């Protein structure tokens, strides 16, 4: 076997690849929440930032494909890992005590599946219309028929439906649970467990709670205010 397949087919190699893709997604999420938060502060700034992200070739043709790859990899590898881990215990215990580990750490599959379902909704909501407008209809102007910037309007419009807001809230609560275990866990996987670990856990836990909370705030804010 080649060095590459040898390394990344081993249990530790697969975990390291999972952790690396996760860290990339964590950075992306921070960027995403920052841009979205602009919609609360200033519709104009949000429009500007969205237009930049939506039309900059570097973002569109370099970062976006890498992002999609990381997302797909993280899901596929996660499911594969879960499948082989389940196969490692073919006969289950009649009695199982779950007290020796947190709920989050034992149920990454549940939170992951909810996030996957959310991503489908999210893609239908924003990504598919974006791609259709820009690359199928060829309208790169970022303007509505009336000549205003369209991004803020589109965002606000989506959050008028209470069911969608509820779906967002549920998904982001699960994302928080996923991150509470996953983010700090990726450091352990990368071999970092030392005197900085307590601080790392504080920072990653803060991230895991604050970032989803801001997403939830934005959804509810637009639902209430428009």
């Amino acid at each position, binding site marked *: 076997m080649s060095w590459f397949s040898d390394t990344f087919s081993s249990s*530790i190699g697969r*975990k390291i690849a999972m952790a690396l893709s996760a860290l990339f997604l964590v950075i992306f999420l921070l960027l995403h929440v920052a841009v979205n938060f602009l919609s609360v502060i200033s519709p104009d700034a949000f429009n500007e930032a969205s237009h930049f992200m939506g039309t900059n070739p570097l973002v569109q043709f370099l970062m976006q494909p890498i992002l999609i790859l990381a997302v797909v990899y993280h899901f596929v590898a996660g499911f594969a890992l879960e499948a082989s881990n389940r*196969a*490692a215990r*073919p006969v289950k215990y009649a*009695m199982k*005590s779950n007290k020796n580990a947190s709920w989050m*750490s034992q149920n990454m599959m549940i939170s992951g599946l909810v996030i996957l379902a959310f991503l489908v909704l999210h893609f239908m909501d924003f990504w598919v219309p974006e791609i259709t407008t820009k690359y199928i209809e060829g309208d790169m102007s970022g303007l509505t028929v009336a000549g205003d910037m369209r991004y803020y309007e589109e965002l606000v419009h989506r959050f008028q439906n209470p069911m969608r807001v509820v779906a967002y809230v549920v998904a982001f609560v699960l994302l928080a649970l996923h991150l509470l275990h996953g983010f700090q866990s990726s450091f*352990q996987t990368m071999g970092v467990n030392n005197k900085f670990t307590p601080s790392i856990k504080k920072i990653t836990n803060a991230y895991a709670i604050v970032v989803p909370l801001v997403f939830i705030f934005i959804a509810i804010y637009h639902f209430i205010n428009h």
Partner: protein
Amino acid sequence: MKLTLKIWRQKNSEDKGKMVDYQLDDVSPDMSFLEMLDVLNDQLVGKGEEPVAFDHDCREGICGTCSLQINGKPHGPDSLVTTCQLHMRKFNDGDTVYIEPFRAKAFPVVKDLIVDRSAFDRIQHAGGYISVNTSGNTQDANAIPINKDDADKAFDAATCIGCGACVAACKNASAMLFVSAKVSQFALLPQGQVERERRAENMVAQMDAEGFGACTNTGACEAECPKGISLTNIARLNREFLGAKL
């Protein structure tokens, strides 16, 4: 005290096996868990029934032979003790106690509560040793200066008794805590340096080949390990593996 025991009975590796109920009266709180099973077996033999097969040897917490998943926890409800050192005072009169073998694909049941843990031996054979030529003038290990901190960490890792409770506790049946302890005890000492990279690679490869799951950092192993082997060892194993591959 009186106990209801629910014990996994399986004639041999081919048998499907099932949980069987037993009533046991007059259990003394001073008995060890294995002594309680001895009493049960005595009664079963008296009635002409097949006694429950379980693993044990030293009965003083050092050999790692005893196992048993007791009420869903490897080595039972107490922490930092093996089954042989667990006492019946940890249970109450009228309790129902589930007793099952350690479950993992890599630990097939041989009979009743006995599982085959030779997968651990094969992992050890893949690299859990140092090669020393015993030519007669081998340097005295005590003559090599070793930083106290590293010596302590290596010694802590070396207290792993290879019982397999980490595998039994893990939802993924992962053997990472065991392998990390065995890799760490050498990686931290000068004597372990020569085979350091090969050791990490080969032991991990053998661990995967045996069909253990992959670690997802739940920490259940550390919580259940009778010797308190720390998760920092798994982080070290990850570093050793990465270091060997890069």
